[in-house]
């Protein structure tokens, strides 16, 4: 199973992903129609992309009264079935991260669908803040990263003890 992976440290705040996302889904370049959002922290000059985490037990899915939102067990994506959606907006209030939202008209619910397995956003993210990877690979990378960090701490401890 592949997931969208964010490496916040690499984001330069160019917001190309927002335009790519909007264009992929609507054929227009409107950041208001983008499923991914680059959060700007000007006081620290940092940029943090945020996008639907496809929660294991998603708040939006739980609260949807018509089961228009369901988790696809194969792809892991929380999918929105527009046919079933009544536009009640419960999902939008329920998502604590603001990852499911209304489009520019303020009427239609939109959320990240990983572009059906070929995310447009990663293709324009030249610094590599966004990538699309196998969960296992990410886990391995994370295990490796943590181990490296712990190794440094261990080394310091040994040095401190000597």
């Amino acid at each position, binding site marked *: 199973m592949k997931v969208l992976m964010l490496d916040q440290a690499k984001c330069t705040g160019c917001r190309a992903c927002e335009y790519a996302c909007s264009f992929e889904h609507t054929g227009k370049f409107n950041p208001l129609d983008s499923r991914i959002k680059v*959060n*700007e*922290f000007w006081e620290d000059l940092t940029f943090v992309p945020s996008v639907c985490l496809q929660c294991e037990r998603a708040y939006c899915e739980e609260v949807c009264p*018509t089961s*228009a939102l369901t988790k696809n067990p194969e792809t892991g994506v929380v999918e929105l079935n527009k*046919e079933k959606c009544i536009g009640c*907006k*419960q999902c939008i*209030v329920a998502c604590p991260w*603001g990852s499911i939202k209304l489009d520019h008209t303020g009427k239609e619910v939109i959320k990240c669908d990983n572009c059906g397995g070929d995310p447009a956003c990663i293709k324009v993210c030249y610094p590599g803040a966004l990538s699309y990877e196998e969960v296992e690979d990410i886990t391995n990378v994370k295990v490796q990263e943590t181990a490296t960090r712990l190794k440094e701490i261990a080394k310091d401890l040994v040095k401190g003890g000597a």
Partner: protein
Amino acid sequence: MKYVIVGASAAGLNAARTLESLDPQGEITILSAEEVFPYSKMSLPYLLSNKLKKRDYLFLPHPSKAKLLLGQRVVKLDIERKKVETVKNKTFSYDKLLIATGAEPYVPDMELEGSPLVLTVRNLSDMDKLKDKLKKSDVKRVILSGAGLVNSEIADALAELKIPATFVIRSSRMLSQIVDEEGSEFIAERAIENGMELITGESITKVQEKGDHANVFLTSGKIIQGSCVVVGKGVRPSIDFLEKTPIKCDTGILVNEYLETSVKDVYAAGDVTETKDLISDEYEMHALWPVAMEQSRIAATNMVGYSWKYPKEVSRNIVNLFGEVVFTGGISKEDAYDVYKEKESRSYHKILVRDGKLVGFVFVGDVLNPGVYLAAMKNQWDVSHLLNEAIKGALSYSMFKAPTREVVNI
């Protein structure tokens, strides 16, 4: 472990789903008073307006393992023997019990109760009755007694169908429970634009069947006509069967912060409960769909043996009315603490701030990210430096400093 859930709606089914995943060995029985398979009550207005494209979409997802028994209204709870008894004289014993019996419409005037032309809307059968009356009646107008959330939603659905309706409102305004006077005025204007009629300061004294329609008598002596009368004057928790038990109730069941009742091993969730409100710090009913979901997930988790504290709740509502999104929260109907308002021709915004923290808001018109407003209020994030953005409906997560965003109550 033997779990029994009383009530098979939003809270009951979500609890079952949680129990299924946390205790796969558990034996779960859900008892439903209704004869039909559980459905979403909050989608009923959308069934009327046909925004729900198929009737099938009304039904809630099937539990995968739990046993669901229909037509088994619980009439007695025996705390000593840990058993419940249903109308069909069946008994079910439990190790842990969840009461998720929700609420029923309240009809204040006894005279109106029982008349075949006076309806309330809570169940699917009620909605079917309303549709039937609309079809058969020679007068195509619905008389709505009360202008609360449910009746306003029904009016909105009727507007979609181009069927006129008349609100008869005892107080002076619409949605007086969730918006302030200016907000009411704004929504009333939209209602009227959409073919609604408003009669304020009046109540219904009598409903008389007249051929295929109803003659409705008002306190002033005026008589109006409609296909039927829909009474929407709020709900009362369904707790009759608890009368002879020591379970502590006020209007609803008073639960502790683990959603357990005053009796051990008996939990409650959803519209049947009263819980502590974050803003007032008092027990209140928060009879809302998302609250039912949240409470049932937490109650079920605790029934399995965990200790998950249920945070203090806030009232909130998001609802589509006459082409506008109405989003309210906290003490939205009041003007208390620091009040900020912004009114334009197509929008009305108000926020209420106490010690720099959001304690209430009303948004009629677009809000960029409603979830943030709820999170900011539930977590009492400081908004004193963000008042401009907040009143514009433009709050977003990135405006809050990173550390404040770490603990998120939703």
